[in-house]
């Protein structure tokens, strides 16, 4: 009897601690039967999506470790990856060499943009998220300036399949047909009718291992110290500003790689829109997995990417079946993505305030006790 109530309490706590993932499990459980998709189709889709998105989401973990919140500036890395891909597509380098070259080529752009982002964020401590969000908009403007006006005019772009007919600027979509799914197809295995892109998963696994290892290094420890308390870290002799910049640069570089993996799976690059939503979807997926603004693990990433994309696959057809209008489901999934981020942000801020006020109360009690001692 007692055991049972204990179990019940534990269950209640589990629900209380993870409201977002549980809500998503419920949404998926309702939507999957209604949508009418076959299990093998769902399996295939979810494996593809987990493969192409995990790497991008993992890059969010490092700034969270350094206490800089959700890195909306990962869009910068995505843009760097896209610029690299445009060059590689123009140079007509196909297949795996093309992907590898694009990754290498994206590093200088990522480092440059990441340093810029980190430096700006150091001037806006405590407001990192809104600032990184605005940076992504600002750099999007610079990206358009470069890609739409400078490429082909100042920066040499030869191939006419990439260039706009007017002679400069890049087309709305750049076809990556020659490297389409080349990572996914190499070493792929068919299992239960679903294609498993083993190489992509190996890359994701390597990144996971890297993150686990990185947490234990000196730099990783420094980052965690900075994330805990900047003042204490500074007193301990850690170069806070530099550590923060490094964490953003690492995140940006990884986001660039992630974007290249993502786009080789998609097979074409929407030059002016591929990156604009990617930050939002990745952050939403991470939060669905139960992460919060100041705490996220690798487990959160995989749970999140699974649940979020399951919802993404089934929502449109479920909406169409229930209301008879396919747009409802489309809007529903967009709404859910935003709502999840909103709820997670609100929960984080209220928790932070509670902590602050309880710390204040403790301090007051301590002072009162000390005064009493004096008397």
């Amino acid at each position, binding site marked *: 009897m007692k055991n049972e109530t204990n179990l019940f309490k534990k269950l209640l706590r589990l629900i209380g601690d993870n409201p977002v993932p549980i809500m998503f499990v419920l949404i998926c459980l309702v939507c999957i039967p209604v949508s009418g998709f076959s299990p093998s189709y769902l399996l295939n889709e979810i494996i593809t999506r987990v493969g192409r998105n995990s790497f991008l989401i993992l890059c969010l973990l490092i700034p969270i470790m350094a206490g800089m919140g959700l890195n909306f500036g990962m869009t910068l890395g995505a843009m760097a990856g896209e610029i690299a891909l445009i060059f590689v597509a123009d140079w007509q380098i196909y297949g795996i060499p093309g992907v590898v070259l694009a990754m290498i080529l994206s590093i200088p752009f990522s480092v440059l943009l990441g340093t810029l982002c980190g430096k*700006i964020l150091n*001037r*806006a*401590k*405590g*407001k990192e*998220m*809104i*600032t990184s*969000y*605005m*940076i992504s*908009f*600002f750099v*999007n*403007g*610079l990206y*358009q*300036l470069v890609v*739409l*006006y400078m490429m082909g005019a100042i920066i040499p772009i030869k191939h006419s399949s990439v260039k706009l007919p007017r002679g400069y600027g890049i087309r709305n979509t750049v076809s990556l047909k020659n490297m389409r799914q080349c990572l996914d197809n190499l070493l792929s295995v068919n299992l239960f009718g679903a294609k498993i892109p083993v190489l992509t998963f190996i890359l994701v696994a390597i990144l996971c291992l890297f993150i686990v290892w990185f947490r234990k290094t000196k730099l990783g420890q420094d980052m965690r110290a900075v994330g805990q308390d900047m003042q204490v870290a500074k007193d301990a002799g850690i170069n806070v500003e530099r550590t923060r910049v490094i964490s953003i640069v690492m995140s940006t570089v990884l986001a660039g790689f992630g974007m290249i993996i993502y786009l080789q799976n998609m097979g074409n690059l929407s030059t002016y829109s591929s990156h604009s939503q990617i930050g939002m979807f990745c952050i939403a997926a991470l939060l669905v997995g139960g992460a919060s603004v100041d705490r996220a693990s690798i487990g959160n990433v995989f749970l999140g990417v699974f649940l979020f994309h399951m919802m993404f696959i089934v929502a449109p057809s479920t909406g169409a079946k229930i*209301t008879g*209008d396919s*747009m*409802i489901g489309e*809007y*529903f999934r*967009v*709404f859910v993505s*935003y*709502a999840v*981020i*909103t709820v997670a*942000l*609100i929960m*984080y*801020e*209220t928790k*932070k*305030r509670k902590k602050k006020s309880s710390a204040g109360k403790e301090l007051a009690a301590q002072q009162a006790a000390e005064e009493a001692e004096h008397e």
Partner: protein
Amino acid sequence: MNAKTSEEKKVGARIRGMIESFGLPRLIIAGFLLLLFIAAPFVGANFFTQLTNTLNRFGWNAILVLAMVPMIHSGCGLNFGLPLGIISGLLGATLSIELGFTGALSFFMAILLSTPFALVLGCGYGWLLNRIKGGEMMIATYVGFSSVSFMCMMWLLLPYHSPNMVWGLSGKGLRTTISLEGYYDQVLSGFLQIKIGDFSIPTGSLLFFALLAFAMWAFLHTKTGTAMTAAGSNPVFAKAAGVNVDKMRLLSVVMSTWLAAVGILVYEQGFGFVQLYMAPFYMALPAVSAILIGGASVNKATITNVIIGTFLYQGIVTMTPTVMNSMIHTDMSEVIRIIVSNGMILYALTRKTEGSKS
């Protein structure tokens, strides 16, 4: 000789002080706009037409920018949640049309009908912002996004029937853009319009803005208004002086939301169309950057900031396409707008002296 140099130094220091208080980015933007106005006649654009356009757009947008003022005063920061108020306005607009009001009456009914929505949504939004002090701006952004995407579903599902608004084929679900012809198209801009050749002044919308701006100015000088400013500039001190800080913040959010609702209606009467679905999504950003360009900061804003900022921002938006187009034969205006407006917001967020309170 010595006296003269010291005098010169003084003047130099004063100029430097003026530049500092005015802000370098603002100076650059104002200079850029001036350059555009000067360049306009040389590239074949009519100066007066350009000025008319700028004034028109000023009339459309000024109230949305004015909506920023109360929340900045009460310490809630920049209202990135403006879309919430815009949605109240859209609800008012569509309801007014649905109920069959036409002409100028439909405009006043739209304002009237949107008011309860603005009050209720504003109260909820204000209550939320009171619980998350310090993180207002990020959460406001996402409250705006969530509400817009939620309303996307609602526009499809709500039982609207007016044939002027729903999709022709299915007979249900609102269209993405609804023409206001026969309703309140140009109801303010056309009112008492003064025309001198190519130059015209949209007196009605300017007067309407002046009325609201004056009301806002007067309100900020009442007892409640002063209390609101106190709550923003030093919450601890205000609390000690007997001001209910949370109530002041709530009031400011409700005011801001209502002004946004009225603002979008004024925008629509000038533009001639109601835009639904994803249209309000990024509408907060132009308003935010306009007030910042006008000299406001994250915690300080005046009516003058609103007027200067809206004029500069809209000036750049209207001038760059025509002037740039005729100068280099490409339309770079959109890119310039993105860089200028978002750069301005970034500049305001990263200033160390102000805005670093939390």
